[in-house]
């Protein structure tokens, strides 16, 4: 099990969260609230792996801030305690117990995908896909990352 309680052992088809139809977004924040609620057990706009913003005011539509599954991930390279480690195929595996709340991962992320709360705790998309079913306009999609990949075991 990973630190967030999801089974990770065995062989899986690795997937990543994508936003191929974000132009359909209506700004309801249901994906954000779902991630905060279901993954992080929080009621919040911020503590989520996907966060929705208007792209320059509500008249210009919306954009989603989320992990783009960089491979290798600069946030993992920046992490001094291995709380963030490389996820095969892209993105990161998070071990919260190892995190010292330094925020180096936040600074390293080129797309502002990691949120750090006022206690220092960080939140990033783990590509679990639980937000996808909560988008009323089907903006979100889990995509395969190119073949079967064995996931790393998490603490």
């Amino acid at each position: 099990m990973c630190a967030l309680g999801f089974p990770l052992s065995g062989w899986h088809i690795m997937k990543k969260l994508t936003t191929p139809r974000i132009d359909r977004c209506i700004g309801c924040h249901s994906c954000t609230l779902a991630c905060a609620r279901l993954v992080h057990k929080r009621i919040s706009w911020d503590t989520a792996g996907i966060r929705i913003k208007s792209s320059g005011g509500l008249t210009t539509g919306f954009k989603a801030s989320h992990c783009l599954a960089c491979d290798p991930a600069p946030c993992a390279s920046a992490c001094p305690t291995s709380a963030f480690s490389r996820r095969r195929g892209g993105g990161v595996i998070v071990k919260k117990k190892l995190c010292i709340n330094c925020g180096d991962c936040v600074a390293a992320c080129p797309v502002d995908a990691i949120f750090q709360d006022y206690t220092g705790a960080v939140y990033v998309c783990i590509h679990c896909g639980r937000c996808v079913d909560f988008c009323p306009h089907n903006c979100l999609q889990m995509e395969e990352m190119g073949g079967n990949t064995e996931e790393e075991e998490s603490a």
Partner: protein
Amino acid sequence: MIRDHFRVLVVNLSSGKGQVVQLDGRYTEAGGSGLAALLFQKYGHPERPWSDPDQPVLFAIGPLTGYFPLMSKTVCSFKSPYHDQYTESHAGGRSALSLCFANLDALVIVGRSERLCCLTLSSRSLDIKDVGFMKGMDVDESGKLFREMSPGSGHRTILRIGPAGENGAAMSCINVDTYRHFGRLGGGAALGVKNLKGIIIHGDAIFSQPDNKEYSRLYSEVYKQVTATDMMKKYHNLGTPANLQGLNDIKSLPWRNLQATSDPAIEAINGERFATDTLLRNSACSGCPVGCIHVGYVREMFNANHRYTFKQVAYDYEPIFSLGTMLNVTDARSVLNILDVMEKTGLDAMSGGVALAWATEATEKGLISDKETGVRLSFGDAEAYQHATEMLGNCSNDFYRLLGQGSLKAAAEYGGAEFACVLGQEMAGYATGEVFFAAQSLGFRHSHLDSGGYSYDQKHAEQDIDGVVDFLISDEAGRAFMTSMVSCLFARGVYKDDLLGSCLTSVGYPELAANIGRTGVHIQKLRWQTRIATGFTPEAITIPRRFYKIETWKGPIDPIYLNSLKNAYGKAIIALAGS
């Protein structure tokens, strides 16, 4: 955010300081409408005028805000510049979740700033800035500047007023996140008189999820009901404009200042036509996956060398009625052009359109002329209405200053009260019959959403005074509970009492869940007591003669029935407030 009390921030613009106050009442006043009335009783001054600096403007959310879908509205209450009595106005956008994530059940604003200012707050900050440079700035431009000046993109609400609010127009609104409004009864002026141009609330708080599996299961169940079934389809398909054709078909749609209730020209501005010709996209309030906001577009060539301007204007049933059928403007893009000016000046589009309809008929009858209106008003002349809207919002002369206080105020000076379409305030777009006319006239907010009078009319041809009054009173109590949660009233078909009770229990309010009916009645009574303390008497409200002269699907209005209904409903309101 789940707590057995209310956490309220009171900001005094005179001193520039805020204070966090804890207040009991969670299990009796619940939140939203109930909390707002409770707060007005604590901070309001019933005997003083609306413009007194000490009068509060209140924003309140409910116990389910942020925790369930469509619990996405905020109640704004204040002493109204329109009738100088206590009132509420409701809006969504991001306002409700912003307040929730600012860790507040309510925001109370008292005092008056010496200079034009904006209030910025979050769960961990409070700041009042001088924005004297925004004086007279329209809603669109001020929104752009506030976005640049404030933190929290995507996770904040930006409330602002336009020139109409700054100028004290009693039909000025508070714009919420561009496409929503605290529209009716002069919220814009209530902020304007405090020299408060904008309020920006950044929702940055983090709460623990309720620690039980039932909560997650219920959330998913509600989400499924509002997205995967047809229950909400009418709101996200054509949206409320779908009703235009239907009401026109049953002779219940006001045309040309209610000189008619049906016209074949509806086909040019019905919901289907708006969707086909102008709909650009949909948008949503935060926390609502329905996405009922319909954003239309207008593209206009302003220079012969193919230079275009492009406007995005959110439309609903009501502004199409007030700026379309009431003004006989039967071109969708022309309706949006007038609506765009209403938005920019910060006027309530419903009240503004109905007031201009009165002014047009007053012009036809020779009571007023270009001398007062600045531009010749005639039904169907959309360009003239755009100019008139700008003058109305800017209160640009004595006539428009008076008209901005309400059609009956202008009629008292110029004549024409008999054809002013006012039912407590400028009418909503339902010429359905006696029940609605009595219901809006005496309704708490003078809104068609106070009770289902417009719906009752469409289902009942028979006359039944006692039955109608019982319906209006009991329906209002149920809605008072909903607007204390604070739910969007579009969700009233989903959130029946059983489901509401389960939701309240799942987040930790079993006491409220067990007393939904009783709490709704209590809040209904509290609101009326608060209103009555500020001067409400049913006898002071008259129904103009125009409403007695129309014909609906039931036939001509029966004046005796209408008067009897109004009298009986008024007595029932006074009785419930005193019981």
